[in-house]
């Protein structure tokens, strides 16, 4: 019987503590055939099981161009993520997915791309960044603005270093005022302010945003001032999900089921939705 | 419930050698110390009891007791400092009020109150602890496995 709710078993191949409460896993399917056949698109998400505790939803944070494994990053907040957080290399967990729509990267060929992320909002964006970097010649300028509350809370520190070292990426790292350490070399200030400073050119350009609602709100108005069209600004909507397949009825924003029709939307599409955030 | 439980239940049903599982919720300062004294004094008593130590009997939520039964306990023992001896002055008095109501509720619901026992045991009463555990174990052994809860459909 086709069981929509039956997860696939995955093994934690690598685990990495990003911040005191954020962990990244690198997962491989137990089923070797599935390792080969599994594909996903950038922006899609999965449901991750800690057996005995339940399932939790977060994005797949690696790029589909790097095959054979899944990466995810999550913050320990509740029952399931708390359980997942306690797992370590070699442990088994469950995965269902991939679900949802994806970023239309192929349509972005030849354009400049600006990534704007805050805190734990970087993982979904990372998938797009990696995808774009793997096909670097397809795109114009790449700008990344990433900030968090404090230096300790920045995720993917190694990767940030790597992006910083590249000549073909403009990386702006920032922490909220008061969150800096004495040896902090990045910016200090909220993400929207730094975005204003980075001032990406709006023409022939795409912006991808992910982060806390308040950051999204102010970044959107900055982008608007810079002259970005709502059709060129992408974000991913996150809502509580249980089934991932449009049955359980809780992720809807108005008539839109985020898990099936989302989570990736342009700002223009979001403005047309019922206000149910 | 875990498969371990159901297997064990089935096993105990078929044999004469039923060994009850007894859950004891005890306070850190008196009963636990009493049980500890029994241990350090090399007193022997029935191994059927599993102890959960809490700071005070006032911390014992009736929910713990329900949860213990749900998870396959055949009996539950709750024990703490004698009235007036509470390390936190009055935790056991509050607990006593709660137990009066809870025991009445359990009785009204039809749960055999012999499976839910309460006692006061001080840090020096190792003997009382040993006797209590032996008695409670015998009593619950005689009652057999607590099928009321084990038979609940999950």
């Amino acid at each position: 019987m086709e069981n929509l709710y039956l997860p696939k078993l995955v093994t934690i191949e690598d685990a990495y503590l990003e911040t005191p409460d954020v962990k990244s896993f690198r997962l491989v399917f137990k089923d070797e055939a599935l390792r080969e056949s599994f594909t996903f698109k950038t922006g899609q998400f999965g449901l991750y099981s800690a057996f005995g505790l339940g399932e939790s939803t977060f994005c797949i944070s690696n790029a589909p161009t790097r095959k054979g494994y899944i990466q995810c990053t999550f913050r320990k907040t509740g029952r399931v993520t708390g359980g997942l957080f306690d797992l370590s290399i070699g442990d088994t967990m469950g995965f269902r997915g991939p679900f949802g729509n994806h970023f239309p990267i192929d349509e972005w060929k030849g354009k400049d791309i600006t990534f704007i992320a805050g805190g734990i909002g970087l993982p979904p964006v990372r998938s797009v960044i990696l995808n774009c970097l793997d096909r670097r010649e397809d795109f114009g300028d790449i700008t990344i603005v990433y900030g968090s509350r404090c230096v300790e809370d920045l995720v993917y520190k190694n990767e940030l270093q790597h992006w910083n070292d590249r000549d073909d990426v403009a990386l702006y790292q920032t922490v909220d005022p008061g969150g800096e350490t004495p040896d902090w070399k990045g910016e200090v200030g909220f993400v929207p302010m730094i975005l204003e400073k980075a001032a990406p050119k709006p023409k022939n350009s795409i912006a991808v945003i992910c982060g806390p609602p308040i950051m999204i709100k102010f970044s959107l108005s900055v982008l608007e001032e810079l002259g970005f069209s709502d059709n060129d600004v992408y974000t991913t909507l996150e809502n509580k999900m249980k089934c991932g397949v449009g049955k359980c009825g809780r992720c809807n924003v108005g008539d839109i089921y985020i898990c099936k029709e989302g989570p990736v939307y342009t700002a223009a599409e979001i403005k047309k939705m019922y206000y149910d955030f | 419930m875990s498969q371990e439980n159901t297997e064990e239940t089935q096993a105990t049903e078929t044999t004469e050698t039923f060994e009850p599982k007894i859950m004891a919720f005890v306070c850190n300062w008196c009963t636990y110390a009493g049980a500890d004294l029994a241990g350090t004094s090399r007193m022997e008593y029935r191994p059927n009891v599993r102890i959960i130590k809490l700071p005070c009997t006032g911390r014992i939520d009736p929910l713990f007791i329900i949860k213990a039964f749900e998870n396959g306990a055949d009996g539950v023992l709750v024990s703490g400092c004698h009235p007036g001896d509470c390390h936190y002055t009055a935790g056991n008095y509050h607990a006593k009020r709660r137990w009066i109501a809870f025991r009445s509720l359990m009785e009204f619901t039809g749960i055999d109150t012999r499976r839910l026992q309460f006692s006061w045991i001080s840090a020096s009463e190792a003997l009382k602890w040993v006797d209590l555990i032996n008695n409670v174990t015998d009593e619950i052994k005689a009652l057999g496995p607590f099928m009321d809860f084990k038979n609940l459909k999950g």
Partner: protein
Amino acid sequence: MEKALREKARELLTTGEANVIIGYEWNRRKTRATPAFITKADEVDRLIFNPLCVNNLSIYLTRKNKDILRMGKPAIVAKGCDIKNIVVLISEGQVKREDVVIIGMSCNGVVYKQGLWKGELRPEIMPVKCHNCDVRNPHLTDFVIGDHIDFTPPETPRGMVFDKIAALDAKTPGERWSFWLEEFSRCIKCYACRQACSLCYCERCITEKNVPQWIETSAHQRGNIAWNLVRAMHLAGRCTFCGECERSCPANIKLNLVNQKLVLTVKDAFDFKSGYDEKIHPPMIVFSPDDTENFIK
């Protein structure tokens, strides 16, 4: 009576003594009374009061209903039995006495379920609480609407609930267990009992606490027994026997029996009846060194 109520409501709204009147109004067909929130003085004529006004409106004073709290200072239309709940809310620090205007209604009784109403209040359709009511003249009020009612409740409470409790007490534990198993098995976990209860005011109920998941949320026997026992226990010494939980239960589970059993237990053990004096602490948060029991070894 309704006229006096409307006048009082108009006065409270115009003077600004209250911003919202929580009362009752007719439904569209005028067959049922339903809660109403009146904020404008020219709408007070919607207010009604009759034996169909069975809801315990004190639920709207709790923090569960934040959007109602945001409407401003409430004046609540309350029968004596509803006032008992307000008293408990005050004694537990949930509501400040000065933050609510209580319009007490003299009451001759209500109907247990509104569907039973055929235009006349007969004893058979009244809930047990009404037959034993000692607060037909409301006890904690700012204003009383209606005439003084001469009614002396029976010395020892009577009625079906008490008979059933006595009958159950006389049975063996095994029989009681099967009775409750059957009752609780019908539970569908809609939590109407919790939501209807003004004393279940937690913003996060124990069933919603999931680290660990104390009470299984599935509506199977195990989860249902745990939920119903814990709900009853959380109301021990607090329940005023307003009966809203049982009335709201779509599965007709006899919640009044467990609740009243605990009311009786608390009365016997601590000589306390909840809902009469807002200055006395509820029995489960205080103690007396003289509390006696016969089961602690």
